[in-house]
């Protein structure tokens, strides 16, 4: 239930942003603010006093949450109100997780205000779903909180509820878009190079991302090593996993002469295998590492960002640049590009195509695992995180041009920024729809992508 509440809050943070458009749609009868207080075990929290005052600070009413955790304050007129939770009345140990017991809300219809309660404070810029949020109208949440993925997905959810200046919000979104773009890029380079060298569209690549996140979780939680050690281990295991996949499965299939369509469907089977194995061992809950969860963000006034985002972003950028330089200047990199260009011609000039493909799988696996670890540091591990990222990766790769490493990078950055900035005008829950629509429009107008060449589409 706590998860459901979080997802609800995240989803409705989005609703809030789009409220100007759809507030008229909600029923106007029961008018006021209401909410339910629950601790992280989903038990209702009673006897907590909540004060509602109007914009000038005049108190309108103070209520206590009932036995079932619910509270409600009826209001006469719409406008801006401040809802304050008195933290001294909370049971021992409980705090408002995001450290923001005071919320400003704009009331235009019946409105739900949720305070996430927990035993520890999470940084205000904490990712997806940790923001308190308000929602209009009937709260239709996911009953089991399991299948819901929109709001809390990928930590891109900037559920600020204060109405910040448009420019500030745009700056925050731009930065988080760049970060998201780098995460996509890490995964996209591998996918695109595997396609370039072998022709295989690997639908299991998203689950390599999950694999990285899960391996780091294993090291961090089960073995108790620090996150940075776990991250390195996960990347190495990701590389090994990529190598093993090519050694044990894909290279053998190529030797057998299995058709590319069959291999594509096999990759779907592999994706199902990895995903359900993860679900079997890890469970369906979103799990977090034991460090950097409640990191205090840096506040620059125009931009609030958690140090972990800066660190992971910079590492990702450095890695992308290193891969790019290696592709341009090293012998192996040149060989890789040659194979991607024309495998038969590359083979006839003495390049060992099998080894190059093996290398591409290894690097691709490592980069995907790194992307998974970084995403998990921001918003935890979930068994289907890679599946949802995969579509963004496809959008990036197609936008940049299938089979080109640099195109994948450019496409990833564009998609990441586009996805985030689009939330300025559309509801955040629909931001992925926008990115996927871009994918289809690119197909219609320039199917070879930005950096691809026309003949690739055959």
């Amino acid at each position, binding site marked *: 239930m706590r998860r459901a509440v979080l997802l609800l809050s995240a989803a409705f943070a989005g609703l809030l942003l789009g409220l100007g458009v759809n507030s008229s749609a909600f029923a106007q009868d029961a008018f006021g603010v209401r909410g339910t207080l629950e601790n992280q075990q989903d038990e209702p929290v009673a006897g907590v006093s909540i004060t509602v005052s109007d914009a000038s600070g005049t108190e309108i009413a103070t209520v206590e949450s009932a036995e079932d955790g619910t509270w409600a304050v009826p209001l006469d007129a719409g406008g801006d109100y401040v809802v304050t939770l008195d933290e001294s009345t909370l049971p021992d140990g409980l705090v408002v997780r995001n450290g923001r017991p005071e919320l400003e809300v704009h009331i235009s219809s019946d409105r739900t205000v949720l305070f996430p309660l927990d035993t520890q404070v999470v940084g205000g810029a904490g990712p997806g779903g940790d923001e308190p949020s308000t929602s209009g109208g009937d709260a239709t949440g996911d009953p089991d909180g399991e299948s819901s993925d929109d709001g809390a997905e990928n930590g891109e959810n900037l559920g600020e509820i204060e109405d910040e200046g448009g420019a500030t919000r745009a700056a925050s979104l731009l930065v988080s878009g760049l970060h998201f773009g780098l995460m996509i890029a890490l995964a996209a380079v591998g996918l695109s190079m595997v396609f370039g060298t072998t022709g295989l569209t690997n639908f299991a690549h998203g689950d390599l991302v999950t694999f990285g996140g899960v391996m780091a979780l294993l090291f961090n939680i089960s073995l108790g090593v620090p996150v940075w050690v776990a991250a390195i281990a996960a990347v190495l295991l990701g590389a090994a996993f990529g190598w093993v996949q090519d050694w044990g499965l894909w290279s053998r299939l190529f030797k057998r002469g299995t058709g590319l*369509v069959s291999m594509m469907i*096999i990759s779907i089977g592999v994706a*199902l295998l990895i995903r359900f194995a993860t679900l079997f061992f890890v469970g369906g809950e979103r799990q977090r590492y034991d460090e950097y969860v409640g990191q205090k963000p840096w506040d620059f006034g125009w931009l609030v960002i958690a140090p972990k985002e800066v660190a992971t972003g910079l590492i990702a950028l450095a890695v992308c640049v290193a891969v790019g330089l290696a592709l341009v200047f090293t012998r192996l990199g040149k060989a890789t590009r040659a194979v991607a260009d024309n495998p038969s011609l590359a083979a006839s000039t003495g390049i060992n195509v099998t080894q190059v493909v093996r290398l591409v799988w290894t690097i691709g696996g490592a980069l995907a695992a790194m992307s998974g670890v970084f995403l998990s540091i921001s918003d935890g591990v979930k068994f289907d995180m890679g599946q949802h990222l995969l579509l963004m990766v496809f959008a990036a790769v197609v936008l940049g041009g299938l089979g080109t490493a640099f195109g994948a990078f450019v496409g990833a950055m564009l998609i990441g920024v586009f996805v985030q900035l689009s939330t300025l005008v559309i509801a955040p829950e629909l931001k992925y729809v926008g990115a996927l629509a871009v*994918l*289809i429009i690119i197909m219609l107008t320039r*199917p070879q992508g930005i950096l691809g060449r026309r003949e690739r589409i055959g």
Partner: protein
Amino acid sequence: MDWHFVLSQALTQAIGPTMLVYALGAIGLNLQFGYTGLLNFGQAAFAAVGAYGLALSVATFGLPFWWGIVVGLGAAVVLALLMGIPTLRLRADYLAIVTIAAAEIVRRLFRATVWAEHTGGSDGMREFSDPFFNLNPFPKDASWTFAFVSMDGGRLTVDFGLFDLQYSNRDLWVMTVGWALIAVFLVIIGLLVHSPWGRVLKGIREDEEAVRSLGKNVFAYKMQALAIGGLIGAVAGFVYALARANVQPDTFSTDFTFYFYIVLILGGAARLFGPVLGAALFWFLYNILAQGLSEAINSGLISPEVMNQTQVGPLVFFLLGLGMVLLLIFRPQGILGNRRELMLDVR
């Protein structure tokens, strides 16, 4: 542990309402993928627009039931045009990516809270199936016995000793309609693929350029195959929505499409009866594994430390995924298929 129960459950499901959904969806996919070679990874979207077309028309806009069916089918054709126009001129893997993206767009739009008052958001919709069940000829409270077939309070039991099949009167009505639809579509597809039109489709699958050089409009043929397959997918969506008496956006995820592929490959692509056999076998295997494992845990045969009830689902799907991979590697033609027909390639 109760083998009789496990076997009965699995066999009941193997020809039951859910299996019909997989069979219908895979029949549509068979025309697209099996006969034409179109890698449609968005069959779930066709089922979704069918189901939601019906549910929205009846529950939200109050249209008559038959109008709902028309709206659902119309939506499937529109979706086929939207998906096909940008991609059918491109190579197969582009179609795969676009269809998977389109299916995800459709699912996210249906679960969006922005218009949740019409679509129900992630909760989905109900209260649209009454007109369908009002037509149900199977009485709710009939009780009779004839040899090993008995009807008790609207519940049909067919007792074979080793196992029995049990269906409620609602199941029976869904099954009657569903099996009739399967028969109709099999006849239609059978006639279509043996017509000159169908031979062009197979030609496109084998060598698109050769067909084009014969002066055929390949794009039009592919579009027709995509639309007809999508219509059958929408019918699968109708049956799914009516059998469960609700629609929920998250059931139409990409995994739903992948299960259609497992069904099709298991039975044998490009074979008329492949999808039906595949669906029966797929759903039988799923149920016997899931029920068997859960019974084994309940009876203590598998200790709770090894696995618990919530892990049964993932394990079964893991095994089915493994089966799909092994099948494609070692027997890509499935049970009924012809190996030479499935040497597809995109380059």
